[in-house]
């Protein structure tokens, strides 16, 4: 460790970097570089420094990916906290402008990688709204969507709780959380073929019907998930260390939530029962029986309790979905309009899942028009009437909004996703300033940001 003001002698280790850090600040500003050592000594040596700015991330394990936190600290107290994002920006929205409306699901599923089915559903609901076919989506497709979203909500909350515990040193919370999530990912694999990045929900319905015996498989998995949730609750909720780490940390009251546009569990921890599933129902949520849990302490502990509570409510919805799925076996899962429905006649062949040979035989051998239609729909896509729409759904992290603009063509003119993680990260400075450095980890974890969604 050494002081590297511009006129100070260069120490050997400084030669490793291409330029001394002091040059970042210009002449006259003292720079200071520390690599290891006792903090008291470092602080003594840096005497005269009034501001100590610490970069936490973008590779810090507690930042859920590549979030960069710029903390100005005074001893152990955070006096200023700012976020730096954009390290995971991949231009998904721009990419969607160069693909057909159906191909769009393949892109938006990769945004928030812990809740892929929510992006897909929101995007498809928006597309259906533009097409004016909201009422034509088959009942069974909506039930499957709701089932998948609620399972996904549990999986996402499990990761939030698990990694949140891990960041505080509670490794068992993490292993239980991920083990429970595994059960749900197996269900996803059974129905979509993939554990994430499903591209399963499509404009007009879903890609393929649930396989035979799927409801039994879900019914068998639910008690296990419930058991793991119980273990998580036992481990966390009455644990004195856990409680003292989380209680009164990261407090954001109701007015602050509304001013900063915070939604989801963080808003509900401040006492407002705003839930898009209740306020602006979609996919038939008004017909399901479930509660929206709230709390009033507005701290990180309340958010953990609420997320656990929401998992149980989601499982309650899943059970209602299973009943409806059993009642509608064989019903269509895609709109009847063949000008929109993606031709997905699939069958299990000798090499796994693929196109149905009967369907291929029919379009290749007997119907030239069907072949042309298949080709046009897959390569060109369907046109969507010019206009714009705004569709929101209740994402595990808050309100996910999709703004879709069509110019009448076969590709979105503009697709914008209002990701709840992106918006909620704005609250980091309010949650962290004035608190301890160690509480930053807890406060950020209570927002549950997923950087794939933040940066898109």
């Amino acid at each position: 460790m050494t002081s590297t003001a511009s006129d100070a002698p260069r120490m050997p280790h400084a030669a490793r970097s291409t330029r001394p850090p002091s040059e970042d600040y210009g002449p006259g500003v003292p720079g200071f570089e520390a690599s290891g050592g006792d903090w008291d000594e470092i602080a003594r040596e840096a005497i005269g420094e009034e501001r100590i700015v610490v970069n936490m991330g973008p590779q810090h394990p507690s930042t859920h990916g590549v979030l960069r936190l710029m903390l100005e600290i005074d001893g152990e107290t955070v006096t200023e906290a700012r976020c730096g994002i954009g390290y995971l920006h991949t231009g998904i929205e721009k990419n969607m402008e160069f693909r057909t409306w159906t191909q769009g699901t393949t892109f938006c599923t990769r945004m928030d990688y812990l809740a892929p089915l929510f992006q897909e559903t929101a995007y498809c609901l928006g597309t259906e709204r533009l097409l004016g076919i909201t009422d034509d989506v088959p009942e069974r497709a909506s039930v499957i969507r709701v089932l998948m979203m609620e399972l996904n909500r549990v999986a996402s909350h499990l990761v939030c709780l698990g990694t949140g515990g891990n960041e505080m040193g509670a490794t068992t919370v993490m292993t239980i959380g991920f083990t429970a999530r595994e059960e749900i990912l197996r269900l996803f694999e059974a129905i979509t073929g993939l554990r994430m990045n499903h591209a399963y929900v499509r404009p007009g319905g879903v890609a393929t019907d649930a396989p035979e015996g799927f409801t039994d498989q879900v019914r068998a998995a639910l008690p296990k998930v419930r058991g793991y949730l119980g273990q998580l609750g036992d481990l966390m909720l009455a644990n004195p260390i856990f409680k003292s780490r989380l209680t009164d940390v990261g407090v954001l009251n109701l007015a602050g939530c509304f001013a900063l546009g915070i939604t989801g569990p963080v808003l509900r921890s401040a006492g407002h029962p705003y839930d898009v599933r209740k306020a602006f129902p979609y996919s038939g949520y008004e017909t399901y029986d479930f509660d929206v849990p709230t709390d009033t302490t507005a701290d990180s502990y309340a958010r953990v309790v609420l997320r656990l509570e929401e998992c149980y409510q989601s499982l309650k919805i899943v059970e209602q979905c299973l009943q409806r799925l059993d009642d509608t076996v064989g019903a269509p899962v895609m709109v009847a309009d063949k000008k929109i429905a993606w031709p997905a006649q699939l069958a299990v062949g000798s090499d796994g899942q693929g196109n149905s040979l009967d369907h291929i035989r029919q379009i290749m051998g007997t119907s030239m028009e069907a072949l042309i239609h298949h080709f046009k729909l897959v390569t060109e896509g369907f046109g969507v009437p010019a206009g714009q729409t705004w569709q929101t759904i209740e994402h595990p992290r808050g309100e996910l909004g999709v703004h879709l603009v069509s110019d009448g063509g076969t590709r979105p003119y503009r697709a914008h996703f209002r990701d709840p993680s992106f918006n909620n990260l704005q609250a980091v400075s309010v949650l962290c300033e004035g608190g301890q450095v160690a509480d930053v980890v807890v406060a950020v974890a209570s927002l549950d940001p997923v950087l794939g969604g933040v940066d898109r």
Partner: protein
Amino acid sequence: MTGGEGREVVGGGYDLPEPTAEHVAERTGMFGAHDTGDTSGYGGLVRTVTMPPAATRPYGGWFDEAVDVLAEVLDEQGVAFGDAVERVVVFDPRRRTADAGPSADAELTLYVARQHLVAVCQALRDDQDLRFELSLGVSGVHFPEDAGRELHAVYHLTSVTHARRLRLEVTCPDSDPHVPTTTGVYPTNDWHERETWDFFGIVFDGHPGLARIEMPDDWPGHPQRKDYPLGGIPVEYKGATIPPPDTRRQYS
């Protein structure tokens, strides 16, 4: 910053062109291909694309009441409704006949003159009959063919109290890409406006720190604009060349 102050600070300096009725684009041919020979026989086909036009009264549902209340509140502040709101659009793709009421999917859009944007937001947020207390952010759209109104900033507002949703749309020309910031009314729009600046180059006047948010600080250009070069390189494969995506043949 209150809305009233914001309005006086930013007002006056803007010179808006007359609002056009709708954004219009023209398509030729059957398949949208322009760089190859027309083999379909439909090369002479010309199709006009129009965005939803201005709505006529009654708008239906709660739309009339909300617009009336907004006009009243703006009038009290000395802003004529016609000056502040250029156009009211109701987009309802499920409405099949003219005399049918709005469907559940109907969406109300107010096209707001940019010098009155803050006043309109303030009125929408604070009046007890409007109460659009939750802003869900800003998104930009670029219409290079919409002369004088190339850049659009779209604001998504939600009234949790009344369970209503409303969209504000503000336009500005490419030559003068300035829109007043709404962070004084909705602090949540801070990052969303930064994102819109980053991707579209719309300058939000009065924003507390209008820096790039997703792209690196020294990035040239604004990537979501339609005229942004994609910079793809042609790929050669077995002697043939595949052009970059923005110059490829496309079907719309």
